[in-house]
């Protein structure tokens, strides 16, 4: 019997939840319009509130394009992210396939080992990476960052690919072998289509991990390896201009795209699992 107290309780609960969702998303939404502010301020001007067209402009977006540092940073982020994700995906996928094998020895231990970079605080990883990579001449090189980022990204691939392989029936591979298919053919025709969504999701995760990483770049990277987050870091500490907000808006758009891609891949993965 819904009484008044229950109603109040429910209203309070809905309010709390709504506030929680607001807390999650509003900070991101607020900076989107601010990035179109014609004035170099970080708050809404009266003109903006009146929706006056003159109060809005694309000047901060233009300043990204005009600034060679930002252009270089965008290039670096994609370059490092691409190769780090590629490396992580290849290594991670192979490992996940091996680990999924029913007869794999010490599976728990090995899984924990390959996932450990993901669960170690990144500042600690960065300190170790800084000492060792600098010592072997990988400091301030793109290769160093690619290797470090691939190390951070590989666990994601292992996890996503393992998830798609969770229900995989290994007798299928043996069946294929008994029908005369070589191991590669069996892999390509049977296993790959099943794990493909997991592989791509993992690759996206690995790319995003690299794309967002800044502590290692901060310690290990030099002028030629500045990435977008690294550039934002100095932007915030040095001269905070609304250009940062423009970049932030672009990154939010990018995040939404990645999110959609992951959703699509997961849907496909489900379909395959449920057997089309």
């Amino acid at each position, binding site marked *: 019997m819904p009484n008044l107290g229950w109603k109040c309780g429910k209203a309070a*609960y809905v309010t709390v*939840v709504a506030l*929680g*969702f607001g*807390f*999650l*998303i509003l*900070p*991101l939404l*607020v*900076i989107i319009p601010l990035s179109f502010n014609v004035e170099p301020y*970080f*708050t*809404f001007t009266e003109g903006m509130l009146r929706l006056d067209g003159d109060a809005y402009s694309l000047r901060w977006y233009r300043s990204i394009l005009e600034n060679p540092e930002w252009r270089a940073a965008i290039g670096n982020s994609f370059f490092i992210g691409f190769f780090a994700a590629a490396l992580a995906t290849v*290594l*991670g996928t*192979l*490992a996940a*396939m*091996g*680990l999924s*094998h029913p*007869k794999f020895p010490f599976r*728990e231990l090995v899984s924990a*080992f*390959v996932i*450990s*970079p993901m669960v170690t*605080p990144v*500042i600690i*990883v960065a*300190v*170790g990476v*800084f*000492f*060792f990579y600098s010592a072997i001449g990988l400091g301030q090189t793109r290769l160093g960052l690619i*290797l470090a980022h*691939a*190390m951070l990204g*590989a666990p994601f691939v*292992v996890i996503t690919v393992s998830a798609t392989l969770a229900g995989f029936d290994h007798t299928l591979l*043996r069946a294929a*072998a*008994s029908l005369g298919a070589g*191991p590669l053919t069996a892999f390509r025709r049977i296993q790959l289509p099943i794990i493909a969504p997991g592989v791509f999701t993992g690759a996206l995760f690995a790319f995003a991990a690299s794309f*967002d990483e*800044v502590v290692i770049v901060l*310690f290990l990277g030099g002028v030629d390896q500045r990435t*977008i*987050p690294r550039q*934002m870091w100095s932007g*915030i500490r040095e001269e*905070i201009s609304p250009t*940062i*907000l423009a*970049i*932030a808006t672009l*990154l*939010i758009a990018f995040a939404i795209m990645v*999110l959609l891609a992951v959703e699509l891949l997961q849907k496909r993965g489900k379909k395959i699992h449920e057997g089309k």
Partner: protein
Amino acid sequence: MNLRGQGNGLGQRIIPVGLVLPLVAFILVTFVIPLATMVVQSIHDPEVADAFPRTLALLADWEDSDLPSPDVYEAMAVELVLSRENRSIGKVATRVNRIESGTRSVFAKTARRLEGADTTDMPAAMIQIDTRWGDVALWRAISEAGQRYTARHYLQSIDLERGLDGGIRSVSEDRRIYNTLYLRTVYVSLAVTLLCFLIGYPIAFAISSVSDSLAKILLVIVLVPFWTSLLVRTTSWLVLLQNQGVINDILVWIGLVDDGSRLALVHNMTGTLIAMTHVLLPFMILPLYAVMRSIPPVYMRAAASLGANPLQAFARVYFPQSLPGVSAGCLLVFILSLGYYITPALVGGAKGQLISNMIAYHIQTSLNWGLAAAISVVVLLGVFVCYFLFDRWVGIDKLKLG
């Protein structure tokens, strides 16, 4: 069973191991060896030992209550001049200075004056150049800095030092900092974890209890921040919370706050807590949601039909079942908070700094890499302990995202 499978027993083991091996080797080289390097860095300090081998060998038999014998001075003089020539003297001076502050200039000055000097009474000559050569404290510092392998950085990383009598004691009160920072880091991590739980639990519950189509939309609200760059989220809070920022503007506009007394929301602990909670919230919600999704709503209905009011039903039936998600989310958020660097560095100000900021400081500014490594090892051990306890109490296999 097929016939070929019979002979394949060995192959069936080798192939999967072979598939995993590249990643294991890769992680070993790119992750484990770096961490090992870090441990070595924290105990290995060869600069002084390399520069003054003979002096240190002679100092080994020295009773440190009195000044060393003249032959120690002789050896020191020779090695000082040598190390000035090969430019290692600055490194030596830095290290001794870290142990006995205010001794840095002694070395270069003495080496410069000793070059080409000819004297029969070396102790007197050196003491004449700088009186501190007649001070036992300097010799003690040299002897201590001369240890190739040392626990010094670890002592320092927990606010301890070796006293005059060789015993271990706390550093003077005005220099104690690391223990305060570990504690503060733990407090902040706990506070962030609690905040994330308080905000995240109702959200996860809401997502898991609404219709599928609405849940999808709500999930997007959680996932967009999750996928958005950390720097973007930190920037937004900086922009929102600053003195002339959106939140203060709104507070002034609705008259809650006077224009002259805008709230200090950023560059302090408040800023750190707000921004870190926001950044880490998805890591609480996703594991919670993953568990809640699997709790059949029948239980709640059953409890209700047995006469429990909704609150009772929730507390007795639902909440216990969601506990694995709670513990997983809390562990993730807590451990991520422990090593957080970027957000406190950008929005924390002086009072919102955590131990990770100190690590970065010693890496980037003071160049005391041994100390940075020692602090990192201490934090890493703390993280290990957390995982160990989690595994004992909950089981590490319960840990999953989404």
